[in-house]
């Protein structure tokens, strides 16, 4: 065993976890300039580390960069799941499915764009906008008639969304043919084929992928959230299985030949892959080939942190907690329990979709087996480890999970022998079992820290989430 290598790995991982906590601490400062400075510093530090070279050897190897991206996407997915499960008490296994939907949706948009076809972007864009409008309209209509049964409202929403989707496809095809000359030819690329345009499309694709996942989660969650905790868990597990089945058959059952079904989708632009620029010397050389890869990942990480935290700390977030603690009491307080569950589910899925989009553009290759429902238990385990209802714990667990289990343990077991890596999946469940037996509320319980506890961007809330921090942590689903 190379002890030096192992020690170096550990140091890097501890440093990265310290970094994310420094970021959270800085974001939790009161003054706006302190927050802004923290964000800039946090970005610059990692960017500098990525660029740094000690005696010709990169300080931050490609493996470490992969781990960083995995940790960021996993933190997004797990934060979304913590919203659904930890804060709202809905035991969902569908998160991995939404992650897959987001990944494939964003990948399809940028893939088509790089192949001179704007239809992906335009159709999904129209789809999420029209679908959102349709949902709002039907919601307004249903609100006037109190007490419409779930089945009926589902029917209304389903038809509205399907109609919106058809209109979006029709509109999108028309618009994308109109845009087609903008791409130019291979010899003379048009304005739409420029790298800048691709970066903009990437940004839109991530947002649209999240919105698309949210749309799917709305129409799926509406009937399923009324089932009750255990059945909801099984139905969401079924959702994850169905998503994987559809992805495996995306070129036969679904009309997406470019996704290539179970063979895996190749040729997604790796917008986030090249974090380090070329080897040219000097500062100018650094920035000559610099791509905003790490910038994008960082921006979306901050975006997700802010979305989730502000959601939890809003009045809706307090209603969410009330629903978790006691649905009947929450209803008595005038909270729309079903609506609140649905909203939390949709926001959680939106975040998962963003995570998936980041993953797709980092890997550049998607295969349905990454979205297997067995892998979907990872975010669940992370959320349970970190503490149900603790965003700080979720972040710690996601980073810890990726760095220590995927990174360190893989390195360690890889050096022990060829069979050893398969032990990882034996050790996870044992750790989970022990945790459940010893500390069922998770490692950190509902403790919050830094950004998640402090007053937010202009938020005037004084109370912390679930009362004073010394309070006895409570488990969801009790």
């Amino acid at each position: 065993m190379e002890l030096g290598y192992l020690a170096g790995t550990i140091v890097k991982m501890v440093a990265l976890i310290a970094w994310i906590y420094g970021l959270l601490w800085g974001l939790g400062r009161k003054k706006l300039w302190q927050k802004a400075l923290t964000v800039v510093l946090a970005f610059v530090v990692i960017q500098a580390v990525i660029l740094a070279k000690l005696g010709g050897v990169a300080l931050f190897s490609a493996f470490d960069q992969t781990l960083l991206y995995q940790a960021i996407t996993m933190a997004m997915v797990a934060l979304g799941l913590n919203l659904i499960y930890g804060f709202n008490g809905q035991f969902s296994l569908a998160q991995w499915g939404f992650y897959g939907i987001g990944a494939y949706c964003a990948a399809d948009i940028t893939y088509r764009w790089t192949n001179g076809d704007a239809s992906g972007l335009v159709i999904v864009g129209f789809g999420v906008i029209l679908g959102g409008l349709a949902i709002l309209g039907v919601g307004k209509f249903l609100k006037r008639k109190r007490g419409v049964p779930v089945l009926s409202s589902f029917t209304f929403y389903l038809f509205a969304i399907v109609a919106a989707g058809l209109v979006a496809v029709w509109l999108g095809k028309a618009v994308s043919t109109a845009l087609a000359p903008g791409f130019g030819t291979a010899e003379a690329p048009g304005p739409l084929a420029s790298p800048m345009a691709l970066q903009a499309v990437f940004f839109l694709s991530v947002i649209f992928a999240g919105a698309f996942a949210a749309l799917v989660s709305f129409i799926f969650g509406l009937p399923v959230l009324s089932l009750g905790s255990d059945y909801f868990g099984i139905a969401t597990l079924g959702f994850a299985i169905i998503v994987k089945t559809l992805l495996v058959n995306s070129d036969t059952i679904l009309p997406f030949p470019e996704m290539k079904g179970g063979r895996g989708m190749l040729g997604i632009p790796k917008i986030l892959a090249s974090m380090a620029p070329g080897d040219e010397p000097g500062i100018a050389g650094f920035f000559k080939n610099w791509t905003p890869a790490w910038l994008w990942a960082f921006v979306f990480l901050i975006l997700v942190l802010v979305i989730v935290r502000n959601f939890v700390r809003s009045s809706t977030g307090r209603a969410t907690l009330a629903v978790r603690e006691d649905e009947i009491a929450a209803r008595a307080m005038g909270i729309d329990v079903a609506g609140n569950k649905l909203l939390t589910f949709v926001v959680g899925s939106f975040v998962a979709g963003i995570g998936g989009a980041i993953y797709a553009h980092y890997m550049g290759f998607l295969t349905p087996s990454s979205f297997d429902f067995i892998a979907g238990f990872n975010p669940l385990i992370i959320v349970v480890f970190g503490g149900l209802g603790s965003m700080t714990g979720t972040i710690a667990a996601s980073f810890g999970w990726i760095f220590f289990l995927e990174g360190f343990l893989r390195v360690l077991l890889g050096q022990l022998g060829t069979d050893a890596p398969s032990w990882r999946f034996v050790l996870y469940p044992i750790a989970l079992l022990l945790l459940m037996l010893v500390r069922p509320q998770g490692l950190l319980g509902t403790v919050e820290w830094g950004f998640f506890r402090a007053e937010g961007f202009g938020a005037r809330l004084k109370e912390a989430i679930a009362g004073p921090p010394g309070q006895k942590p409570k488990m969801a689903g009790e």
Partner: protein
Amino acid sequence: MPASTVNTKAAPRPAARRGPPLAWVGWVFLILLALVTVIYIGSKAWSNPILFLQNFLDGLKLGFVYALIALGYTMVYGIVKLINFAHGDVFMVGAFTSFYAVSRFNLHQWPLALFPGINPGLSIVIGSLTVVLLSMGVCVILAVTIERVAYKPLRDAPRIAALITAIGVSFFLEFFGALPFVFSGRFIPYKSPFPTTAWYIQDGIHPIVSGTASPDNTISFSNIFLIIAAASILVQILLQFIVKRTKVGIAMRAASYDKSTARLMGINVDQIISFTFAIGAAFAGLGGVLYAVAYSSIWTQLGILPGLKAFVAAVLGGIGSIPGAFVGALIMGQAESLTMSYISTPMRDAVAFTILIIVLLVKPTGLFGEPAQEKA
């Protein structure tokens, strides 16, 4: 006269509150969906009734296996309100036990090896039964161990904690089994302990010569199908007898109704729960052997999807109800078989969960389930 005017005025009142508004929309949607499905499958069946009957038989075979697994789910859920995810993996362990017994140790031939003069047919029957009993025994030991080690300490914890533990146990069994020195992670061809014979129906029943296909436009079935059906029905009868007629069965029902009162009545509830796990595991072991014989290929994640579908079947029939699990499993088998042949093979899993969602929305207690009691 004034009295009658009051009556006529009062009469429209109840008529104005006719249940929730727009409820008919959902029903019309569901009925239309059902009509489209029935018409689609009916037209296919009409155009080729032989194929339809063959699918029906295949669905029955699947359904009988699901019934064996669903029993364990429904009994355990009925008594401890836990979705025992590990049940599907107990089923897998049953299949693997029989695989090792047959392929490595030739356990199915022990009567012939011990008593060389014995009738070979009798030897096969006794040997196969030994293999099945061994698998059932291993599954029982495994399930009771799991119950004691993992679930019992969490009996008073929140239900979700127990559910996550169950998922953890399930993963542990799958991935521990996939280690190279345990079962290995590959698909393994399964050697049946008894010879398979198939027949086809065409103006009477004719055996299919092995190595040849059955003639076109005939329905074929094999002795495996008959054995699965017989075993499944026998198990149903046995379980009905145990639950309804024996003291243990009465204790089980009492414990599932109200654990603390059952304890006051002198019932050892922990023992009863272990017994419930044991019975469920025994049937899962039997199901595992029969599934492996019928589908002749095993691997360590074999139990996940049959387990989930059996759970859906248990919910469909009404969780906690034993005949409900049987009927639900048969319906699931049919749904899956018909989907496979008429709609699309990969979507067979989707149908199971769609059925689950629709059933829970329309009749949350399932077909045979009792309405949930209000507990103080």
